[in-house]
């Protein structure tokens, strides 16, 4: 007990409307590799942000004991000074600067007034050796692959004399060789006395490297398992990760999908031209009329890329394969083509790229289909207003009026505006990316009710979701996406969380 480098006690962190962490206890022994697992939204990243000072000490309850002393971090610099290094999923490197400049960023070695480049390169070279990376320290970050960048990040953390290294899904974007290399380096750092906390979705990898595993679920610590004392295998972990009963939060659906296929995607592949990575690999799936199809999978598995590449490919991927929509082979070159044909896509990030926050409810709702409220390019203001008012009524959007700016609405109401916008397009298929992300339980129920209502009228919904209960509760059929391809098709009634997890963690 005494040799714990870190103890987090009774940590509770709430966001408006959500309790992200609820009385979490978490202890890490000195010199071990401790893995943190759990579903998306279980609170893993939040817990690490609490630890690293992203959320200052007065914004959460509970205490953090580091090396036997209570610490209160006001920001990341405090935690860095205390010997905690954190490496995020999205790497925090400056692409146009060199490797050594990045490693020493913010801690440049000076000689008098000027920067001592020679000394910095020398020190960087030593650090790169520790992560077994043999590259020129003067190379630009942008010329390195993602695996090497990850190692540079670790070298950067080491330069700060890190005692406790936190890695948030370090292998999510790596290929098999880079993964193995990274895991080897973590083992080596362990022998050098560096303690690691690693968040990962890949259970095989967790089992291969962890000394201890803590499972989080719904913001609570479920268990902490030791590889030495406990029986640990994939089945045990999955059971702990998902082991909750589904409450009756899904409204019953009376309608049944028809036998007509409305959308079929065949041999669909996509390459991201910026990174050269193959984001989608030979995807095949079908959507029937009046059906809710769940696309399940972990974050980064390629679900959103799949949706966007079909929906007019705004990212400019190099795509191949066939889309057969309403019986015709189609290729949409711009989102407007897809919308015109009857395919809509509500994004996962309604604030970032779904809605125009600085504009009113009225302007957002008709944005994707202004043709319908205009003649010869001139908008019929009354018709436009009436449209918005009708949606505000029918979807019970809570707002003082249709002129309210969307940024002033709650998450659930913003999501309803987003839904209204796409309903106004009257699509045959709506791809709904994370329909209930960041909204409260009541609003979720309303969104589910809307989805049921839509399919009963013959619309088809492709629902992308990271929440397994939602996928199971809402889908007629489920496709599991992993690593840019579909790893399984399941019936919505007979599928279980365990089976989906297994398919989703298949690499």
């Amino acid at each position: 007990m005494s040799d714990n480098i870190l103890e987090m006690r009774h940590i509770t962190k709430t966001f408006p409307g959500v309790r992200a962490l609820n009385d979490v206890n978490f202890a890490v022994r000195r010199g071990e590799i401790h893995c943190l697992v759990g579903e998306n939204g279980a609170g893993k990243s939040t817990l690490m942000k609490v630890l690293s000072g992203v959320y200052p000490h007065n914004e959460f309850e509970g205490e953090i004991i580091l090396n036997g002393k209570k610490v209160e971090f006001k920001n990341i610099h405090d935690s860095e000074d205390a010997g905690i290094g954190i490496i995020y999923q999205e790497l925090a490197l400056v692409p146009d600067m060199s490797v050594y400049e990045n490693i020493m960023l913010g801690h440049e070695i000076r000689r008098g007034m000027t920067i001592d480049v020679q000394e910095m390169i020398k020190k960087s070279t030593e650090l790169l050796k520790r992560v077994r990376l043999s590259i020129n320290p003067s190379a630009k970050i942008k010329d390195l692959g993602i695996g090497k960048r990850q190692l540079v990040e670790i070298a950067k953390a080491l330069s700060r004399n890190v005692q406790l290294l936190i890695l948030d899904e370090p292998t999510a974007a790596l290929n098999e060789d880079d993964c193995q290399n990274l895991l080897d380096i973590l083992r080596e750092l362990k022998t050098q006395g560096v303690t690691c906390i690693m968040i990962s979705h890949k259970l095989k990898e967790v089992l291969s490297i962890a000394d201890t595993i803590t499972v989080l679920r719904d913001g609570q610590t479920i268990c902490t398992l030791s590889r030495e004392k406990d029986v640990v295998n994939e089945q045990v972990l999955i059971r702990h990760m998902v082991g909750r009963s589904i409450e009756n939060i899904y409204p019953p659906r009376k309608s049944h999908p028809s036998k007509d296929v409305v959308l079929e995607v065949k041999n669909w592949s996509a390459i991201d031209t910026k990174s050269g990575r193959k984001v989608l690999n030979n995807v095949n799936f079908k959507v029937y009329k009046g059906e809710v199809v769940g696309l399940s999978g972990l974050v980064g598995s390629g679900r959103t890329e799949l949706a966007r590449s079909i929906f007019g490919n705004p990212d400019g991927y190099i795509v191949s394969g066939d889309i057969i929509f309403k019986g015709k082979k189609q290729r949409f070159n711009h989102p407007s083509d897809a919308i015109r044909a009857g395919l809509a896509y509500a994004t996962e990030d309604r604030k970032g790229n779904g809605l125009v926050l600085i504009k009113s409810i009225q302007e957002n709702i008709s944005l994707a289909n202004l043709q319908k409220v205009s003649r010869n390019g001139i908008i019929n203001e009354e018709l436009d207003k009436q449209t918005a008012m009708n949606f505000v009524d029918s979807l019970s959007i809570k707002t003082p009026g249709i002129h309210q700016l969307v940024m002033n609405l709650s998450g659930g109401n913003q999501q309803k505006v987003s839904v209204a916008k796409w309903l106004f397009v009257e699509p045959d298929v709506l791809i709904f990316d994370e329909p209930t992300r960041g909204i409260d339980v009541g609003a979720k129920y309303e969104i589910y009710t809307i989805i049921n209502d839509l399919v009963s009228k013959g619309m088809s919904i492709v629902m992308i979701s990271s929440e397994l209960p939602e996928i199971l509760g809402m889908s007629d059929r489920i496709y599991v996406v992993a690593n840019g391809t579909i790893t399984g098709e399941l019936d919505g009634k007979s599928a279980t969380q365990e089976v989906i997890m297994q398919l989703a963690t298949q690499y």
Partner: protein
Amino acid sequence: MSELGTLLKKNVREYGMYIALAVIMAVFTVLSHGVFLSSRNIVNLLNQTGYMAVLAVGMTLVIVIRHIDLSVGFLSGFLGAVAAVAMTQWNWSVGLTIVFVMGLGIVAGLLTALPVASLGVPAFVASLAGWLIYRGALMLVTASTGTIIIPNETFNALGNGYIPDLFASEVFLPSLHKTTLVIGLIAIIAYIISQVLDRRRKMQYKFEVLSSGLFVAQLIFVSVILGFITWILAGYNGLSWTIVIMLGVVLIYNFVTQRTVLGRHIYAVGGNPEAAELSGINVKKITMIVFASSGLMAAVSGILFTARLKSATPQAGQLGEMDAIAAAYIGGVSAAGGVGSIMGSLIGAIVYMSLMNGMNLLGTDISLQYIIRGLVLLLAVIFDVTTRKRAA
């Protein structure tokens, strides 16, 4: 009264500009012992504003979609010189010349937009290249002759002439321009009728409207202002062609931005380009259209001041883009995108030109004039940013 209070509070940013203009005009009128508000000076002021207001209108939409167009100053100078050459050396008619120059403006705007829209070249750089190119082109056109004098009366009238008085009379109000009075009267009546119809339609749909007392007060207030402006303009030579063109441009752009699909699309692209793209709006196309409009406005601006000077000079249009940017920002456009109105930019241009005109009347030293203009621009933007923050 509380309704008026909330109305004022809600629109403090919009009204702030009008209030600022009123204050500036009042100050200059007092300091100049009334000369500033004389018919002759106001007409002169608006004639001076014309070419800048037109540039500002084009620039506003460019800034709304988060870009900038530095090329318009010298582009307008260059196009003015082309017009001069077309009429004096190629002996083209005025009509043909104007259509040709406006076409060139559109092409120039599209050329600036092409690398911006298709390759993601920053508009600052692409239009800076235009700034250099059109500066060179202007020098080239005027190289052999220097300043080109334009002898064409019809063309020059665009910058100096006034609309004819169809009801000229020696007996009835001999000192006033009767046609201008009639147009002003028609404008007031049209304004009242459109407001009443609009209110009735809104009530039919059960939309929120102003209480009838406040509505009437608003009608009277605006009518009085319109009437006052008409009276002042009629007191000199009446409406000038420059004012007519400027108002025409403002009315058309106001309509396009507020009432058309294109206008909504432009503001959506400015508000959130990615959301706009995913809503089926072709962001590239919108970018091309907005820059083409900016080029077109540069052409109109070039025609206006070339006609005003009755000649094309090698320095024409210099710093026009900066004045237009200043006017747009004084008028409340936001660099963050998606915010800014045509009316605002017109008022911004008038405020900006009032400062120059007023200080010239008072004989203020030119160096001090620049400093004061800079401070006013800064104040306007600070006011804008703080009220916007409070609103959000």
